[in-house]
């Protein structure tokens, strides 16, 4: 009981301090000037319709490299802790009973649609909301659906690590081309094309395809590693 009271006191303190801080900032008022610069430069110079994308890839490209590295290290750490090869004669313990027919048919219908949606989100990252990370996460959700529905759906970790490596190397090398040209990391060096068309924005499209593949592969690998090591009956076997 005391624990619960303490939790609510802590929540009240945190909430009060948040409200106190935010009450100094007038809601919805225009305060910063760097936003104007981005909003003006993004469509005019870079020909990118989605300003968020141009900030993430062009203006803040080095931060994006840090984010990609953090995600990669997290996936690597999880795999190195949890991944293990199956012993001989060990059965797949993902699920004892096959899932229901409704779930199976529904997953078959939904899976290709979700993959296409994810590919759409990262290919059109410079035109519509979304981008490489979001699209990759959507594709990982699709493979999660297949993994929990079908026992026989296997993920090849070799393929995943190849996709991940190639996409990561592509990302860094495209960024380095910008550096070699005497500009900053991930600076645009391709022709920018026309605003609001698919082939616009220079390197953003290529970068986001690479990031999308990388994130999809990484998150799928994480989910598969966690699911394969799921042994609900391991305690009973040892006893």
């Amino acid at each position, binding site marked *: 009981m005391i624990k*619960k009271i303490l939790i609510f006191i802590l929540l009240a303190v945190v909430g009060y301090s948040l409200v106190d801080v935010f009450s100094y900032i007038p809601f919805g008022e225009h305060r910063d000037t760097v936003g104007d610069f981005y909003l003006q430069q993004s469509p005019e110079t870079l020909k990118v319709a*989605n300003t968020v994308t141009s900030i993430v890839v062009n203006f803040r490209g080095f931060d994006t490299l840090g984010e990609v590295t953090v995600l990669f290290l997290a996936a690597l750490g999880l795999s190195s802790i949890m991944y293990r090869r199956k012993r001989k004669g060990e059965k797949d313990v993902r699920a004892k009973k096959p899932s229901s027919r409704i779930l199976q048919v529904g997953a078959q219908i939904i899976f290709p649609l979700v993959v296409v949606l994810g590919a759409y989100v990262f290919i059109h990252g410079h035109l519509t909301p979304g981008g490489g*990370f979001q699209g990759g*996460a959507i594709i*990982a*959700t699709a493979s999660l659906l297949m993994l929990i529905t079908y026992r026989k759906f296997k993920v090849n970790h070799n393929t995943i690590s190849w996709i991940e490596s190639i996409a990561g190397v592509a990302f860094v090398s495209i960024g380095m081309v910008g550096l070699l040209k005497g500009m900053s990391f991930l600076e645009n060096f391709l022709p920018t094309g026309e605003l609001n068309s698919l082939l616009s924005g220079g390197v953003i499209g290529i970068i986001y395809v690479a990031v999308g593949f990388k994130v999809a592969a990484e998150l799928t690998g*994480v989910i598969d590693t*966690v699911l394969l090591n799921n042994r609900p009956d391991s*305690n009973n076997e040892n006893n």
Partner: protein
Amino acid sequence: MTWLIIPIIVLVILTVGAAIYAVVTKNLLYAVVSTGLISLGLSLFFFILQAPDVALTEAAIGVALTTIIFIITIRNTTQYEDEENDNSAVKGGSND
């Protein structure tokens, strides 16, 4: 803008209610599902406040992936929070 007040109020009630329920309940599975509900409400909030990029991320990561990984973890450990003996989960897992 005024018609937006009604869905915002509904969303606030849903999100805050799910958050309180996640803290209060003893069943960890219900707590995880209501955490996913918080993420759903938040992503709708982001969409209403004109941040669709963040809304997409929140929907994919917060609602689907995090919830599923927590559910797998709960299946491997215990489903109910034990107030008197906080070490029960550790003891149960030490058989491995």
